[in-house]
C-alpha cells in the first residue's frame, strides 16, 4: 500500500514536470474527443491516432469529454495551454456555436491539424416504422402530426442540420427526442424508442447491413459505393440538390498560439496516418469520404462549410443570431 502510494506519487510527479526545452512530444499528449464513445467522431479519432502516434513517437491518451453539443470538450482544450499537449478531436458542430448562441468559441480559435474525412448523412428508421422511403415518411408524418419521434443530438448537430434542410423544403411536424451523441440515439432507434434518426452513414452502416435499422434516403447527390441500393434524396426529391453535397466532418485541432514546429509535427503525423492502408480501409468501409486537409486548404474548407451551413440553418429560423453578426459571409 505504501509502495503503491509512492509509485502513484512518482507517476503524478512525472506527469506534472515538463522539461522546458525537450523535443516535442516530451510527455503524454491529451486527446479530447468531443463526442461519446462508440459514435463516429470517436471511432475515427481512435482509429487514426495510433498511426499518428507511430509517426510522432509519443503517446496520445484519448478521452471522451461529452456534453453541450461538444462544447464541453472544446472549451477544455481551449482552456489548456497552447503547447500541443492538449489536442481536440472535433466534428463540425463548433462552427455553428456562434450563430446558435451556444458559445463564443469556434474553430477560428484553433489551428486545424487535419480535416480527416467527411461523412454522408443518411436518414434511417427503426425496422417497424410504417414507411420505407422518404416520400412515404413525409406522407405519414403529415397524416399523423407529432406522432413520429426524431432523434436529435442538440441544436447544431448533424440531425438538426439535416432536419433544417428537410424543413426548408417540406416542413414536418414531429417530436424531437434529445440524446447525447449519435451512438446512444441509434441504440434507441434499434430499441424502438425513436422512429427516425438523421445519422452519418458510418455510424449506421453496420446496423443497415445487419438489418437492425432501415435506410430511408441518402442525403447526397450520388449513391454511396458502400450501399448502392439506398436511394439518394435527390432521386425522389430533386429540390434538395441545391444544398448538397453536405456532410459532417472530423478533424484534429490545436489551440491558436501553439508553436509552429509543434503544429508542423502534428500535421505531418496525421497526414501520414491518413494514408495508412488500415485507416483508408476503415474510412471506406464505414462510408466516409477521405479529405485529409491541412493548412490553407483546411482553413478554406472550414470557412466554406461555416458559411453554407450557418446561412442554411439561419434561414430555417434555428439560429439565435445572424451569421452576419460574426462576419460569416453569405454563400
Amino acid at each position, binding site marked *: 500500500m505504501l509502495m503503491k502510494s509512492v509509485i*502513484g506519487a512518482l507517476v503524478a510527479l512525472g506527469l506534472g514536470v515538463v522539461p522546458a526545452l525537450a523535443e516535442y512530444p516530451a510527455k503524454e499528449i491529451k486527446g479530447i474527443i468531443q463526442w461519446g464513445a462508440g459514435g463516429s467522431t470517436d471511432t475515427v479519432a481512435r482509429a487514426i491516432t495510433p498511426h499518428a502516434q507511430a509517426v510522432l513517437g509519443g503517446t496520445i491518451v484519448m478521452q471522451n*469529454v461529452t456534453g453541450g453539443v461538444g462544447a464541453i470538450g472544446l472549451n477544455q482544450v481551449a482552456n489548456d495551454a497552447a503547447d500541443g499537449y492538449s489536442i481536440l478531436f472535433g466534428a463540425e458542430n463548433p462552427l455553428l456555436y456562434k450563430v446558435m448562441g451556444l458559445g463564443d468559441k469556434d474553430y477560428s480559435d484553433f489551428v486545424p491539424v487535419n480535416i480527416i474525412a467527411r461523412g454522408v448523412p443518411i436518414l434511417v428508421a427503426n425496422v417497424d416504422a410504417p414507411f420505407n422511403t422518404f416520400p412515404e415518411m413525409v406522407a405519414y408524418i403529415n397524416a399523423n402530426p407529432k406522432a413520429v419521434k426524431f432523434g436529435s443530438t442538440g441544436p447544431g448537430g448533424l440531425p438538426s442540420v439535416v432536419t433544417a434542410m428537410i424543413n426548408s423544403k417540406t416542413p414536418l411536424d414531429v417530436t424531437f427526442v434529445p440524446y447525447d451523441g449519435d*451512438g446512444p440515439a441509434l441504440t434507441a432507434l434499434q430499441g424502438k424508442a425513436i422512429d427516425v434518426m438523421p445519422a452519418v452513414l458510418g455510424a449506421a452502416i453496420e446496423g443497415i447491413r445487419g438489418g437492425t435499422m432501415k435506410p430511408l434516403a441518402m442525403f447526397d447527390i450520388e449513391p454511396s459505393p458502400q450501399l448502392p441500393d439506398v436511394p439518394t434524396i435527390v432521386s425522389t426529391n430533386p429540390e434538395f440538390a441545391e444544398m448538397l453535397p453536405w456532410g459532417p466532418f472530423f478533424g484534429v485541432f490545436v489551440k491558436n498560439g501553439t508553436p509552429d514546429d509543434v503544429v508542423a509535427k502534428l500535421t505531418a503525423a496525421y497526414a501520414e496516418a491518413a494514408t495508412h492502408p488500415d485507416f483508408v480501409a476503415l474510412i471506406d468501409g464505414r462510408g466516409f469520404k477521405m479529405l485529409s486537409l491541412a493548412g490553407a486548404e483546411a482553413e478554406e474548407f472550414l470557412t466554406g462549410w461555416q458559411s453554407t451551413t450557418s446561412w442554411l440553418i439561419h434561414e430555417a429560423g434555428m439560429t439565435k443570431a445572424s451569421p452576419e453578426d460574426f462576419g460569416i459571409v453569405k454563400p
Partner: protein
Amino acid sequence: MDVINALLIPILDLKLLGLIGLGTFAGIYVGAIPGLSVTMAVSILISFTFSWAVYPAIALMIGIYMGGVYGGSRTAILLNIPGAPSAIATAMDGFPMAKKGLAGEAIGIVTVVSFLGGFIGILALAIFAPLLADFAISFQPRDYMMLAVLGILLVGSLSEGSLVKGIFAGALGIAIGAVGMDPLTYTERFTFGTSGLRSGVSFVAVMIGMFGISEGLMQLHTVNTAAVKQKISSIIPSWSQVRKHIPLGMQTSSIGTVIGALPGTGGDIAALIAYDHATRVTKNPEVPFGQGAIEGLVAPETANNAAVGGAFIPMLTLGIPGDAVTAIMIGALFIHGLNPGPMLMVDQPNMFWFIVSALALANCFMLIFGLTGIRVFVKIVELPRAVLLPAILLLSIVGAYAVNNSVNDVYWMLGFGVFGYFMKLYGYPLGPVILGVILSRLLDDNWRRAIISDQESLWMLLKGTLASPLSLVLFVSVILIFVSKTPLWGMIFRKRTA
C-alpha cells in the same frame, strides 16, 4: 466443432494465456487504485496494442477489464476508498468488517463471489446473448427512469438512523450530479457563471473525498488507539459458507448481467441495485447491513462482475456497447479491421467464442491472483494510524488528480472530504450522497426523454407504461418497494396476520 476450436484459441496459445493472466494481474491493481479506472487503462492499451494482432490485443484488454472490476473492492474494504464506482456498495459492509479485524475474511469471500458473478455473466453471454441483447435494447427512456428510481429508493437502506437525513443526503447528491452544462439543452446549471463548473463536479473526486478523506478525519479522533488485529486464519472461505450465499449470489448475478447488458447502465448501478435487493431478501442477516453483513459484500460483488459478461452481450451481438469499457473495445475491433455490428456474429463467429473463452480464463486468473497475497494486504489495516492516515491522504490526492489530470479535482475531493466529515459528525449518512450523484443524470435525462417522447403528456406516459410489460413490471416494483418502506406496508401486513 468450430466453436470448440475458437474456445480453445486462448487456452492452447501460451502467449495469449500469458497476456490474459498479465492483464488480470495488472487489472486488479489498476482497479484497486482510486482514480485509475479500467476505462482509462483500456483506452491507453488501444494506442499501445494497435500494431499487435487482434487476439493478443483483445486478450490483454479482457484481462484488465475482469481484474479491474474485482480490484476496486480491495481499497473499499481495507481503507473505505472504493477503487472504482462499482465498489461503492462493497465499502458499506466491507470496511466495517475490516474495522472488526475481518478484512481477510471479507476479501476472501469477495474474491470467491466475484468469480461466481463473473462466471454467471459469461455463461449468460455464451448462451443467451442474442436474446438478452434484444431485451436490453428494448429498454425505453421511461424504463431507464424507473430503474434510476429503483436505485434512488436504496436511500432507505443506506440511511442508518434517520431517514429524513438520508433523503436530504440523497437530494444533495442529485443536485451535485446536476452541476454543469445540461447535455440535452446546453443550458448551464448551478455553474454560477464560472467556466470551471461547466463540465460538472468530478464524480470520482466526490467519491474519494466522501469515503476516504472523511473516514481518515474520523479516525483522527482515535489516533492513539491501537489498530485492530486482523484475523488471518479464515481467509479462504469454507464451502459451507460459500454455499449459504449461492442463492443470493445467483439472484444478484442475474441482476448484474441484465443491468450490465443495458446500454445506458454499468457495473456501478448494478452493484447498488443488487445491494438493495440483498437488503430486502435477506430476512435475518447474522450482522445488520452497514455493520459488516456478508450479504452486503456478496450482492454488489457478484453483480459488478456479472455485469462484465453482460456488457459484452449487446457489444458482440449488435455492436452496441454495454458500458464505457466495451465502447472502447468496439473502437479496438474497428482499428483491427473488424466491423462490430449485427453481422459480427455471422462474419466472425470465432471472435465471439474467443472473447467468451478469454473472459472465462480471466475470471479463473482473478480467483487465483485474488486469493493469493491477501495476508500481506490485510497488514495495511494494522499499520499505526500515524502512518496509515497520511498514506490515505496521499492516495486520495493522487487518485483524484489521476481522473482528469486536474488540480481542481483535488480541491473538490478535499472539500467534499471535509464536508463529509461534518456530515458524519452530525449523523448524516454519506452513502445516499454518492448514490444521488451516480443516478442524477440517468434519472434526469431519461425522465425528460420519456416525457418529451410522449408529447409532454403525463397521461400518455402512464398509458405507455401500462401498455408495455417491461415498464409495467418496473412500475409495479417501484410502487411495491416504495410502499414496503413506508408505515403503510406494516399496517397492511399486520392486518393480514391478525
